[in-house]
């Protein structure tokens, strides 16, 4: 059918640091050695903590959790671009970013052991807790960004994470639409890790990329190599800067891979091949970043050894601290159902406590 062209769109992909640690100098971000090491440390800490939690889970010392192994660059790169005045609105697979925001290691143990206390820490004001209902958090991010715009808060923005599976949810569409209509400072990062439990990305959505969803809302969108921490940082940095200066929302698709199981309750051998996983281990974001640091002479084996030892010690201590915690107030849920006092709740608290005594 011959017709008039009324729109033309282009989509791009950003890669800076390749699988061998070679950097494209034209695209290399201007990061201080300190920041680079901070980013590297964050990725390694997230990896090591994941591995420790995995062991603890297998020993029955924490409950089910979803490892972020393999996705450290997709998570920590954007988090490095955050200022304390920005908000972080995560889903459930951004351990690295949470730790960078000041969440203590103990807290993910607590959370995954069934305690709300795991969500509560000093400095949490602009970091939302883990959000389990897939997709819902993206709307909270847009609302927060609206509040910033309403209060004419300058130089701050919201960074929101979601998975490739999450892009199928209606809430994600509504979030993108509200954000673009309102032109509020929010950056959406889709961690496309190839899978939503057992569903491969290709059957989650028919589009060639998830970044092209941005076109539907006329907002900037880009795909990045999600295992390239320089690319994830740069893309997020650019989008956050734009957002902070009134340029509205953006969408970043970070193409990465979940190297471990969906959660510790999952067995990925049921739905994917060892070969596929092998291929992705070769693209592991951490060794390539180490090679980059080494090539810049910021890093060497001694520093690596010291870092590993330091991280191990930090985790050991956190685990010890966590395992000595007790005194979880049994009737805390009654304290926090409402911010006001109600007779019916207090009556039920009394019944609950009386029953506890009955059990004792």
């Amino acid at each position, binding site marked *: 059918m011959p017709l008039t062209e009324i729109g033309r769109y282009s989509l791009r992909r950003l890669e800076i640091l390749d699988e061998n640690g070679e950097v494209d100098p034209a695209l290399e971000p201007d990061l201080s050695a300190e920041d680079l090491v901070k980013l590297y440390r964050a990725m390694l800490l997230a990896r090591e903590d994941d591995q420790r939690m995995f062991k603890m889970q297998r020993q029955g010392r924490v409950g089910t959790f979803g490892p972020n192994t393999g996705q450290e660059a997709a998570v920590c790169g954007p988090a490095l671009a955050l200022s304390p005045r920005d908000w972080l609105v995560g889903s459930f697979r951004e351990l690295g970013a949470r730790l960078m925001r000041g969440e203590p290691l103990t807290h993910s143990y607590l959370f995954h052991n069934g305690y709300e206390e795991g969500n509560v820490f000093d400095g949490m004001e602009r970091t939302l807790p883990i959000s389990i209902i897939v997709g819902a958090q993206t709307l909270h991010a847009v609302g927060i960004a609206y509040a910033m715009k309403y209060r004419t808060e300058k130089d701050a923005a919201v960074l929101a994470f979601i998975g490739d599976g999450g892009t199928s949810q209606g809430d994600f569409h509504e979030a993108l639409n509200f954000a673009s209509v309102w032109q509020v400072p929010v950056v959406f990062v889709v961690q496309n890790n190839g899978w939503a439990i057992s569903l491969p990305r290709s059957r989650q959505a028919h589009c060639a990329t998830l970044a092209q969803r941005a076109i539907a809302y006329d907002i900037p969108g880009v795909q990045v190599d999600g295992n390239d921490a320089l690319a994830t940082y740069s893309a997020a940095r650019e989008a956050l800067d734009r957002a902070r200066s009134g340029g509205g929302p953006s969408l970043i698709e970070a193409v990465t891979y979940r190297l471990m199981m969906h959660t510790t309750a999952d067995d990925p051998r049921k739905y994917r091949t060892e070969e596929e996983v092998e291929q992705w281990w070769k693209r592991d974001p951490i060794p390539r970043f180490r090679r980059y640091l080494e090539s810049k002479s910021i890093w060497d084996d001694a520093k690596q050894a010291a870092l590993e030892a330091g991280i191990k010690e930090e985790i050991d201590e956190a685990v010890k601290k966590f395992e000595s915690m007790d005194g979880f107030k049994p009737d805390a849920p009654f304290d926090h159902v409402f911010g006001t006092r*109600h007779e019916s709740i207090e009556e039920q608290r009394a019944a609950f406590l009386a029953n506890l005594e009955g059990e004792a």
Partner: protein
Amino acid sequence: MAKMTMVQAINLALHEEMERDDSVIVMGEDVGVDEGVFRVTAGLHEAFGSARVLDTPLAESGILGTAIGMALAGLRPVAEMQFSGFSYLMFPQLEGHGSRFRSRTQGRMTVPLVVRMPYGGGVRALEHHSESREASYAHLPGVKVVIPSGPRNARALMAAAVRDPDPVVFMEPKRSYRVFREEVPEEPEIGQIGRARIAREGSDLTLVSWGAMMRPVLHAAEEVTSSRGASIEVIDLLTISPLDGSAIARSVSKTGRCVVVQEAPRSLGVASEVIAQINDRALMHLEAPVNRITGYDVVTPYFGREMGYIPGPGRIRRGIEETLDF
């Protein structure tokens, strides 16, 4: 003092609260320039501008989800659902998040917001425009559900809801929007969420209801009083959750007889909970079964048939008489 309809009274409360506190913002479909399909938000857009009186895209989950974000960031959004029949689209946001941030963070993050929604039948509206489904919200821990019955309490409770630290579902009986006026004091009044009101004192029977049913209920109470001299106490629940069980129990302990009138379908409605509360607190005072006069467990009929399905004064009167005669 001025005589006002419920629409005007809620509108007054919104004006007052927005003037008092610039963190209060109003949002929803057509609440701005159009001033709401029932004109509940009349004048707000003109007075406070489009950043505070926000016409949103047509997406209820989006409205509540972003309102939750705003509340987390320190605002106090008052979000409108154009009709309660569309509000289920935001149920997951309310159930999953609005109601939980406080407990999830042990009080460190809170969601002070109001979701307003016209509900209920009797206005000859299309499908999905006349349901009465307050029970779905009242079963959610962490959410308060308020249902005014007249202009004065609507204004006071709306002010309370806006100032409340928790998410409040504010269900407005649309059938009562304009059918009567009431004196509303000049000075702001702040209602108390969680408290029922004795709308009429009496000693022979307790009549419990809420929302639009209060009008036929009070009418039936008058009729039975004048026809046979029975003394009927009427309780207007006003808050559906948390329910004021002790107010109900006190009255029933005194009267020994109770009729509950509910517009919603019969099973698992608020009337069931009222009966359960009486069972828990005052069963041994009952001289007759509690008579529940409710809608039926059928899909809400289109409006051609709806009036037969909503309790009317005749049915309520007969119910009272049966219970008195039991």
